[in-house]
C-alpha cells in the first residue's frame, strides 16, 4: 500500500512510476533517492520508491534511453550506440591546435631536425613541454637524435604519419614558403646553417 498525503492522492504504483518518469526525464543530473522522495513529500515508503524505480528501469530496457543508477543517484541516459545519430544533430566543431602548436609544427617541418632551443629562437618565445608532447602524442614528430651540446637536447623531425595525415608523399611536397634570410632568423645552439640554394 502506498503511504502518502497528497492533494490528489496517488492510487497506484503506476502513478508513482509516471511521476518518477517525468521527474527523471527533466533532469540532466542524477537524482539521489533523497531528492526523489521530496517529490512525494517524503511520504512514500522507501521500499515502494525502489520498487517503482526498478519497474521503471525494466520498462525502459532495450530502448535508446535507459534508466540507470549511478553513484550520485538515478538518471536517464542515452545508450552509447545511439551517439552517432545524436552527433548528426549537433556536429561538433572540430578541435583546433593553438597557434603555438601550429608554429612549432611548421618550424619542425621546415627546419628539421631542430631542438627545442632552435624552435624557441625562431619563435622568440619559450616552447612548453606540453606543445612538444601534443605533437609527439599525435605521432607527428619524433626524436631523431640529440645535439651534442650541453644538455644533449633532442632533435625533432616529422614522421611518416605526419606526411600521410596531411596527404603528402614527401616533405618536399610541402608548399614552398618565403623564408627569413639566414641573417634575420635567430639561431640558438646550432652552428650556422647555410642556405643550400640561393633562389632569392
Amino acid at each position: 500500500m502506498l503511504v502518502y498525503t497528497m492533494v490528489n492522492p496517488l492510487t497506484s504504483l503506476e502513478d508513482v512510476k509516471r511521476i518518477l518518469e517525468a521527474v527523471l526525464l527533466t533532469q540532466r543530473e542524477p537524482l539521489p533517492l533523497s531528492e526523489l522522495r521530496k517529490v512525494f513529500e517524503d511520504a512514500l515508503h522507501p521500499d515502494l520508491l525502489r520498487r517503482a524505480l526498478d519497474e521503471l528501469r525494466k520498462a525502459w530496457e532495450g530502448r535508446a534511453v535507459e534508466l540507470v543508477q549511478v553513484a550520485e543517484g538515478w538518471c536517464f541516459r542515452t545508450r552509447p550506440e545511439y551517439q552517432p545519430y545524436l552527433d548528426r544533430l549537433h556536429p561538433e566543431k572540430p578541435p583546433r591546435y593553438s597557434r603555438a602548436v601550429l608554429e612549432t609544427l611548421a618550424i619542425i617541418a621546415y627546419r628539421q631536425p631542430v631542438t627545442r632551443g632552435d624552435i624557441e629562437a625562431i619563435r622568440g618565445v619559450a616552447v612548453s613541454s606540453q606543445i612538444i608532447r601534443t605533437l609527439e602524442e599525435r605521432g607527428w614528430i619524433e626524436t631523431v637524435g640529440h645535439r651534442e651540446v650541453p644538455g644533449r637536447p633532442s632533435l625533432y623531425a616529422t614522421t611518416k604519419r605526419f606526411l600521410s595525415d596531411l596527404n603528402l608523399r614527401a616533405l618536399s611536397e610541402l608548399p614552398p614558403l618565403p623564408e627569413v634570410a639566414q641573417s634575420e632568423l635567430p639561431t640558438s645552439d646550432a652552428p650556422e646553417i647555410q642556405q643550400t640554394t640561393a633562389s632569392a
Partner: protein
Amino acid sequence: MPRTSAPVALDAAQAPPVARVLGEEWRDLPQDLYIPPDALEVILEAFEGPLDLLLWLIRRNNINVLDIPMAELTRQYIEYVEAMRRRRLELAAEYLVMAAMLIEIKSRMLLPRPQSVEEGEALDPRAELVRRLLEYERMREAARRLDCLPQLGRDFLPVGVAVERPAIARLPQVSLAELLAAWHVILKRAHMSRHHRVSRQELSVRDQMSRILKTLQSEPLVLFSDLFSRAGGRAELVVTLLALLELVRERLVEIIQATPFAPIHARLYHGEPAH
C-alpha cells in the same frame, strides 16, 4: 464623493485584489468611494493607468460604457486627481491627460450640437473615448487569458536527459594552409627584410637529414656507401650527399675512416675526443 450605488464586487477571478492595505486584500472597494488617505497610493498603484481606472469607475457604478454619464465620471475622476495632488503623490501625466480629455468631452457635450452639414455623423464626443475603452478592455482581458495558458518553465518543463558520450577524443586536423599561415606569423615576428624561398631541394635535403639521423639511431655505425643505397637516382644521390654534409656541418653526424682507404663510416656525432 460620488453617489451611492449598488455594491460592486470586482470579479475575483477576473481581477487581482485591487489593493492590499495593512496586509488585507481589498477585493471589494468601499462602495461610496471612501479612500483611506494612506491607502490612496496603494490603490492607485493597482491600476495600470487612466483607462484602467476609468473602466473600474464605470464598472463600479454600473454604467454602460457606450453611454457614459460624462459629467459624473468627470467629477469623480477630477476628485481622484485632486486627492492625489493634495497627497502630493507623483502625479502621472497620463492621469492629467485623461482628466483634460474628460473635461473637453464634457464641455463639448454642453454645447449645442452643430446641425451638421455632413449628414448622419452625430458627432458624439464620447465615441473616441468609448472606442479606446473598449479596445483597452479587450486587451486587458486578452492579457488575462494569455496568462492562463500553460507556460513553459511555469506550468510544464522541457524534457532533456543526459547523453552518454563515449570518450573518443577528436583530434584536430591541420591543413597545409594552416602550416603556411603559421610560418607567415613567424616571419612577421622575425622582422623579415629579405625574401628567400625554401627550395624544394632544400626541403628534401632536410627531410634526408632526418632520415639519416633515424637510421643512425638504430644502427650506430653505417657504411657511408650504405646511406646511398636507397637512393633512387642521381638527384637523390645529390640530396643525400648534401644532407650528410649539412649534418656534419651541424655536428650532428661524423664521418670516420679508421685508416686511409679503409671503409668510410658515418655515425652520430660523439663530441670532440672521438678519434
